[in-house]
């Protein structure tokens, strides 16, 4: 790889790469994101390469191992170009047929195609799969055709062209103006206008400034940033270099959480290759601008996603936040002006520069511009990453794209914003997803985690779950958070164990007010949100736990038991066979009963019964 020393060198390389890539060539794209990887992409790849060799097709078929395609429920995913034939859930044993039928004979194998659960039709092309066709993928769009370990793949799809535009035809002030006009807001959860953040940082006195990428992504259930870093790391790098130019910074950090080893690996390769090409380092492309990036790995602490804690951690210290009377754009890392942005925020920057700020601002709503990537997980059919314009109704995301609730269960709530967010009930499903609307209903955008829940989720237990998490992750330095969350958790644990008392709901409300108003940082400040929003929309469930000593969802073990409805039971014997405690008795074809003394409420029988004959009482 020879260094690119000018705009001309870049354009020559890009032209060359575009020429080499015949759009009609046979290309097999295999998703190797962490999800599909765990499902077995490596074995599928080995089988594919072997079969290609066997059939004498080496050199005629290109196999590209890419990052996350987003439709994680259907992994391992294979897409065969140029037609874009979509094969989900591919196993090594499927490979011989796929190679002989689709690759050699160009025929589609019908029963390996994706079957839409709503229309029941088989769909052959990726672009027609409703999960994808209803999205607007400006951040994730290239994940399916880029090998993240090959910078040339990124350049071939116009990668780094935004950087060229910025370095050679825009001033830093013009870049900031473009980002401001676009309306881009921080995608990590804060939603602060990115252009204003950059402008403020640029104006602070000082010789040394830093730009940082927050890849700590601690919200459980959210993995958008992981997919961008694993699948398209150069989009983040390009955004950071542009941001550094705008702010006047020459040093950058990418802080990646410890639990994402593949993301660390891929961003490391990307940095190395960008350096080799002269897109990072001194005198980038002969522009006179210097910028270097370092990777830092987290140690497994949720609080290190908070800006001041992250910067402490970068300094090798314990990640304890400080009060933000002085913002990090003025005094951050080593007390220098620092601009910290989320992975997705950075990835949006090259798009804004290339397609224009006005175009970007035409997407979304008045105060929430652009698109947002959501991780749609939990009790939903089409689990995966969904990128839609801001303002899209929740119902569209969960039902039209997400495919609704599986196993004939009923929707109960969707949780957004992670442990700082809240739950949204069914009657609000038509609301638009944007920063303001979510805040108005007692939740927040957060980083984009969207966890769908059905009738089997207990909302009181969910509040308890979040507080348990926050208590573990609290840094412990301020009393409202350290002690307040502990007490909230104690009250909720008592309620779930059947020891709730009259006045507990009011106590939770009072404590929540104190914790949220007086905590030092946003962890404590938003900790009561899950409690307050579940009380707001599911108060009756709390009352059932406290006054009736019952858990209607069948989760809090002291407050329910399973009973087989003898009239519905047809004696299929499945529950008997699957019960790990041998607590069910009954003869085949006859009614069955549960011995409550032996039952440990593991829910296996409840989930196995196809006739809904097991009731929660």
């Amino acid at each position, binding site marked *: 790889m020879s260094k690119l020393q000018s705009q001309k060198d870049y354009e020559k390389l890009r032209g060359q790469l575009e020429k080499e890539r015949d759009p009609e060539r046979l290309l097999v794209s295999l998703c190797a994101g*962490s999800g599909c990887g765990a499902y077995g992409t490596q074995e599928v790849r080995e089988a594919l390469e072997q079969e290609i060799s066997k059939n004498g097709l080496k050199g005629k078929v290109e196999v590209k191992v890419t990052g996350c395609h987003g439709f994680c429920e259907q992994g391992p995913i294979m897409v065969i170009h140029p037609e874009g034939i979509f094969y989900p859930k591919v196993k090594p044993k499927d490979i011989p047929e796929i190679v002989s039928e689709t690759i050699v004979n160009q025929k589609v194998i019908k029963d390996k195609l994706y079957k839409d659960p709503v229309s029941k039709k088989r769909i052959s092309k990726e672009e027609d799969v409703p999960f994808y066709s209803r999205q607007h993928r400006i951040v994730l769009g290239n994940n399916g055709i880029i090998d993240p370990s090959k910078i040339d793949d990124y350049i071939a799809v116009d990668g780094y062209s935004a950087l060229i535009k910025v370095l050679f035809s825009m001033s830093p002030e013009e870049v900031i103006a473009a980002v401001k006009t676009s309306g881009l807001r921080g995608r990590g959860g804060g939603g602060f206008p990115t252009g204003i953040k950059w402008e403020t940082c640029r104006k602070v006195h000082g010789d040394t400034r830093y730009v940082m990428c927050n890849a700590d992504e601690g919200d459980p259930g959210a*993995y958008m940033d992981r997919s961008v870093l694993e699948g398209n790391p150069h989009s983040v790098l390009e955004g950071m270099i542009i941001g550094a130019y705008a702010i006047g910074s020459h040093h950058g950090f990418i802080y990646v959480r*410890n639990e994402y080893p593949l993301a660390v690996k891929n961003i490391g390769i990307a940095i190395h290759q960008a350096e080799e090409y002269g897109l990072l380092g001194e005198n980038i492309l002969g522009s006179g601008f210097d910028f270097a990036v370092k990777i830092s*790995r987290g140690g497994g*602490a949720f609080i290190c996603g908070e800006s001041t804690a992250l910067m402490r951690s970068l300094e090798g210290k314990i990640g304890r936040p400080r009060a933000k009377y002085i913002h990090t754009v003025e005094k951050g890392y080593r007390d220098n002006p620092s601009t910290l942005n989320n992975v997705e925020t950075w990835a949006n920057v090259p798009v804004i520069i290339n397609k224009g700020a006005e175009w970007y601002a035409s997407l979304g709503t008045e105060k929430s511009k652009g698109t947002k990537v959501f991780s749609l997980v939990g009790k939903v059919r089409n689990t995966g990453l969904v990128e839609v314009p801001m303002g899209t109704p929740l119902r569209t995301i969960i039902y039209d794209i997400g495919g609704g609730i599986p196993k004939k269960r009923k929707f109960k709530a969707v949780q957004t914003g992670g442990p700082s967010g809240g739950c949204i009930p069914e009657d609000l499903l038509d609301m638009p997803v944007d920063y303001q609307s979510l805040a108005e209903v007692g939740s927040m955008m957060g980083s984009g985690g969207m966890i769908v829940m059905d009738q089997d989720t207990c909302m009181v237990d969910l509040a308890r779950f979040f507080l348990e998490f926050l208590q573990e992750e609290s840094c412990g330095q301020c009393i409202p958070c350290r002690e307040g969350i502990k007490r909230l958790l104690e009250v909720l644990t008592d309620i779930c164990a059947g020891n709730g008392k009259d006045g507990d709901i009011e106590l939770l409300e009072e404590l929540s007010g104190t914790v949220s108003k007086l905590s030092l940082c946003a962890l404590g400040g938003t900790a009561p949100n899950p409690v307050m929003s579940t009380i707001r929309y599911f108060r009756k469930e709390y009352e059932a736990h406290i006054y009736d000593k019952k858990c209607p969802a069948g989760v809090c073990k002291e407050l329910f038991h399973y009973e087989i409805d003898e009239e519905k039971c047809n004696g299929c014997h499945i529950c008997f066979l*699957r019960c790990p405690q041998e607590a069910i008795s009954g003869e085949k074809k006859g009614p069955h009963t549960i011995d409550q003394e032996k039952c440990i409420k593991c829910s296996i029988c409840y989930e196995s019964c196809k006739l809904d004959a097991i009731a929660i009482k």
Partner: protein
Amino acid sequence: MTAIERERSAKQEPVDTAYLDSVLERNREDPENLIMILQDVTARYNYLPKDALTYVTDRLNLPMSLIYGAATFYKAFSLTPRGKYVINVCLGTACHVRGGGRIMESLEEKLDISKGGTTEDMKFTLESVRCLGCCALGPVITVNEKAHGGLDRKKALKLVEQYEAEA
């Protein structure tokens, strides 16, 4: 055996100074890289042995209290020896909603240890993690970084039995 007893009874191998030197060099002996240094030490020993930490603090010229603070603050580190197989059960929200808590309970019962503990034979350590980013696979566990998804109680127990059978 308590954690302290376990540490004392662990084979006191001499500190691998060559490895530690390479770690320090790779991290430019910079105290700011402390977390990454500790991660590299963990990669070698599967925990943070006291002798290795003493070596590191001497070279970095840092007080042991600082290292102790970092080792107890960040979840990635353990000051006591961990088992051959470190099982991490994902207790993130998506996995919780799909029954992750029940997987943890069944593993605690099977291995006869509670969350955070290590089996007597030093084969398994059972820990929790709050989201691995593989939510479509939920409930998920990792065993020494290898992810296993789509689990239920039965599959999780079978998986542990498979690892148990390996030497």
